[in-house]
């Protein structure tokens, strides 16, 4: 089973490397968008899927990250630095926003984060002196490293893919470290975890902050990808979409976000053959998917594979 998973992952990786060579700029743009959103979904999967905290603010964090980069790079701050700043800022904000998670549980946290993301939109829109207000920020530059420019679509895709690989690897490492074990414990039985010496407060905030900072780093890539950002791109809609990616892919499965983002990015495009009705069809498909595999596609896959290998488990580390 593990071998199967590894093999499939490798195949997917190879495909991700060669796919753009077969694609036109539009296709490359879409899979770049996939890579970027996957990073954000990876973060949400950490808070939601592993630590069990429902956040509806991931979109807002993507926004904060995007604006950080769009504001810092023009004043001469190197991209790498701006990128880290985006991550750090979102980590800090996420940490603070995580506190309600300690006081209130479950859906109440969802409400707080929902309110937060709307507040973020209002600030981005109203504080024109800083954010350019409703007009947004135009012509965000794509970075270049040691003479290698990511301006070309293909280069930027490989850049995003590289970042995704690095961040995914880091996340994977964290999840197989004692932290990952602690996060799962947090989700499954906080009381028992506490009695085993787990500082549940610290781990909860950590999960929330790290998830948020992944969102921020995704935003740091989103800005140069689209080369334009405006407040309306980071409203609840995006948060919902990211939540959808995590759930549809399979929350709590490491590769869930990869699959979920793929679907959220590509499905609407495939549906466009339905012309004006494409969003209707898309919505229906999502509802059907939820009804038939609520544990997400990987959950479904796991159940299918279990049929062959009864004792196997390809779940989260």
């Amino acid at each position: 089973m593990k071998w199967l998973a590894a093999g499939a992952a490798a195949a997917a990786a190879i495909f991700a490397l060669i796919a753009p060579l077969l694609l036109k700029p539009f296709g490359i743009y879409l899979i770049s968008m996939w890579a970027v959103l996957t990073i954000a979904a990876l973060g949400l999967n950490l808070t939601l899927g592993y630590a069990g905290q429902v956040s509806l603010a991931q979109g807002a964090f993507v926004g904060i990250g995007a604006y950080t980069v769009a504001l810092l790079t023009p004043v001469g701050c190197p991209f790498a630095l701006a990128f880290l700043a985006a991550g750090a800022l979102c980590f800090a904000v996420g940490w603070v926003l995580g506190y309600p998670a300690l006081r209130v549980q479950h859906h109440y946290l969802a409400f707080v984060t929902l309110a937060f993301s709307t507040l973020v939109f209002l600030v981005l829109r109203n504080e024109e002196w800083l954010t350019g207000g409703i007009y947004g920020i135009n012509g965000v530059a794509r970075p270049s490293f040691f003479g290698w420019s990511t301006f070309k679509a293909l280069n930027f895709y490989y850049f995003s893919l590289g970042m995704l690989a690095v961040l995914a690897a880091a996340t994977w490492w964290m999840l197989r470290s004692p932290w990952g074990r602690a996060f799962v414990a947090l989700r499954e039985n906080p009381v028992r975890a506490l009695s085993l010496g787990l500082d549940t407060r610290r781990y909860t905030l950590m999960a929330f902050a790290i998830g948020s900072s992944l969102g921020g780093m995704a935003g740091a890539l989103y800005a140069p990808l689209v080369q334009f950002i405006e407040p309306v791109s980071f409203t609840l809609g995006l948060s919902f979409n990211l939540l959808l990616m995590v759930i549809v892919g399979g929350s709590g499965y490491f590769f869930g976000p990869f699959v979920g983002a793929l679907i959220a990015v590509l499905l609407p495009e495939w549906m466009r053959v339905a012309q004006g009705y494409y969003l209707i069809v898309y919505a229906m498909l999502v509802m059907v998917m939820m009804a038939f595999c609520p544990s997400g596609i990987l959950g479904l896959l796991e159940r299918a594979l279990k049929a062959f290998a009864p004792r196997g488990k390809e779940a989260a580390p």
Partner: protein
Amino acid sequence: MASFFQLLVSGLATGAIYALIAVGFTLVWQTSQTINFAQGEFVMLPAFFVLAAMNAGAPFWLAAAISIVVSIAVLGVLFKLVVVDPMLKYGVLPLVISTIALSLLLKEGAKEFYSSQAQPFPALVPAADIDILGAVVSTQSLAVLAVAIVTVVALNLLLNRTRLGRQMQATAQNSTLARILGIPVERMVLYTFLINAVLVAIASILISPIYLAKFNNGDTLGLAAFIAAIIGGFNQVRGAILGGVILGVLDNLSAAYISSQYRGAFPLVILIAVILLRPQGLLGRVEERTI
């Protein structure tokens, strides 16, 4: 002062609408753990039922009646059977995703199959303005206020004075216990969905003369109802009403006296404060239930 009173009165009218929507939202949540992110679209849709019926030649009152019936069938029964029931056992999140998708579905549906343009909607009462202690109120808002109050009072009577209502409340508070007491829990849950359908239909018919029937009306209404429900107490009918009114009035006052750019922010700040300081809401009960 007169202006303050003016703001208060119009705020009440708007708040009454939010309350109406929030109440149904709360009921459905209580009995079936359904956070309905499509509630806003539920309010948008019945207006189009009315218009469709009128296009087919029905007079307004009949069209309104038809709309309510159709709403009960579609937004009540169908919604529960097709969307909620199959997903309940999987917990809240998949259902949340599903209702989000549903809201997109309804929005796009109304747009593609009726019109993307805002549709004029027949008024319940002849438009006129009445002067009350220096505050001018349109008969529209008064009608809205009146109907909203009557509906809510009726609902409260149903819930607290009748056997059926008490059974529903029991179901809402502790379905397992209710089941042991021999209450037909399934039917009670269904009833709350029907009540919600009726409430949104009424709300829809009330507001459409002012809001006009438009496919994306749900965007603002849904969120408002949501916020109202939480502020007032996510598990409490009275709370939802209070929340709605607070929201309506607060929105006006903050826009007038603090900042119109941030008018949307104040309810949210209050929401966060309420959740942190009083998670069960202003009038809510402490909730043991977990997801």
